[in-house]
């Protein structure tokens, strides 16, 4: 399982912010930081406002600011949904 990458989508209320494949996603939930690797069990979590870090397959990193949202993991598909979300350059 670990070989297949995660499909990550970051969506804001009015547009899709980013989508692509990744090896790891780190986000901050209301309970604390959580790291998601391929093969993670299905999960729904409420996000605390803060950064979401996505490590891409080549090793590149994408960071997004997410505010007021949640995160869902299911069959290696990670969806980060936030009212306001934007990429940090």
């Amino acid at each position, binding site marked *: 399982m670990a070989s297949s990458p995660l499909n990550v989508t970051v969506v*804001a209320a009015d547009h899709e912010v980013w989508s692509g494949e990744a090896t790891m996603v780190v986000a901050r939930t*209301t309970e604390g930081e959580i790291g998601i690797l391929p093969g993670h069990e299905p999960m729904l979590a*409420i996000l605390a406002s803060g950064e979401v870090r996505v490590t891409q397959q080549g090793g590149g990193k994408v960071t997004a600011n997410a505010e007021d949202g949640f995160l869902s993991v299911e069959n290696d598909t990670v*969806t980060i*949904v936030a009212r306001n979300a934007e990429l940090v350059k």
Partner: protein
Amino acid sequence: MGAQLRVYRQKIRSAQTTKKITRAMELISASRITKAQQRVAASGPYSRAITRAVSAVATFSNVDHILTTEKETINRAAIVIFASDRGLAGAFSSNVLKESEQLATLLRSQGKEVVYYLIGRKAVAYFAFRQRAAEQNWTGGTDQPVFDTAKEIGDALVAKFVQDDSEGGVDEIHIVYNRFVNMVTQTPEVVRLLPLEVVEGVEEPGEHEVLPLYEFEPEVGDVLDGLLPVYIESRIFNAMLQSAASEHAARQRAMKSASDNADKLIKDYTRLSNNARQSEITQQISEIVGGADALSSATK
């Protein structure tokens, strides 16, 4: 120039000016429809993700949440009407208003009291003219809705829904808006927003697929608490975007037929004025001929 002719020329000029305005509005609406449609499409991923998550929570847990449970007795129902700020959009606003009147009649016949929430100046004006009270209204920006307004409306509705019956809370919330089908068709739609029925988007698992058993963080109840208001906001935002796209489409169509009508008027009046000019000339000639005749017969 004869009086008749002057009147026709005036009418032609007036139709020409009207045509310039309606043509301009038609072009503006046409260019905005595309943008509005793109916004509807762009908000798709968000609402899909939320709907999926909400249905997942609702299906895989048996938690009763206040927003999803139906009350035993429903005394008061709210109707949220999405109209437009500006007129000149054909039957756009009157369609939703008519639809909501029907809904109100139905609800009243079931013994429910109806309260209104209005969006758009046209709806507010409709109610003001009939001296009917509305619970709350939002005006401005119906043609380019922003998410903050949707959040405001959502918060107000959820607060009212959570409130107890005796304190003026509502037990049921319906929304009425124009759904954008395509450029020529926009249909008024009535949807019950609360209590929630999460039906759409619940994907039947395939035969080999195992139902994902979600883990919730922090707790199922907390996740629902956080998710449901967001879901409602996204439904409202979607209704606002659909309504905006429909408004532009309806206005474009109305303005197109207005321009066509102006064209027809100009053509008709040009014919009439040509007629009037010709008969004026004919009359002048016969007057001259008659005068010359009279003179020549007098000198003889």
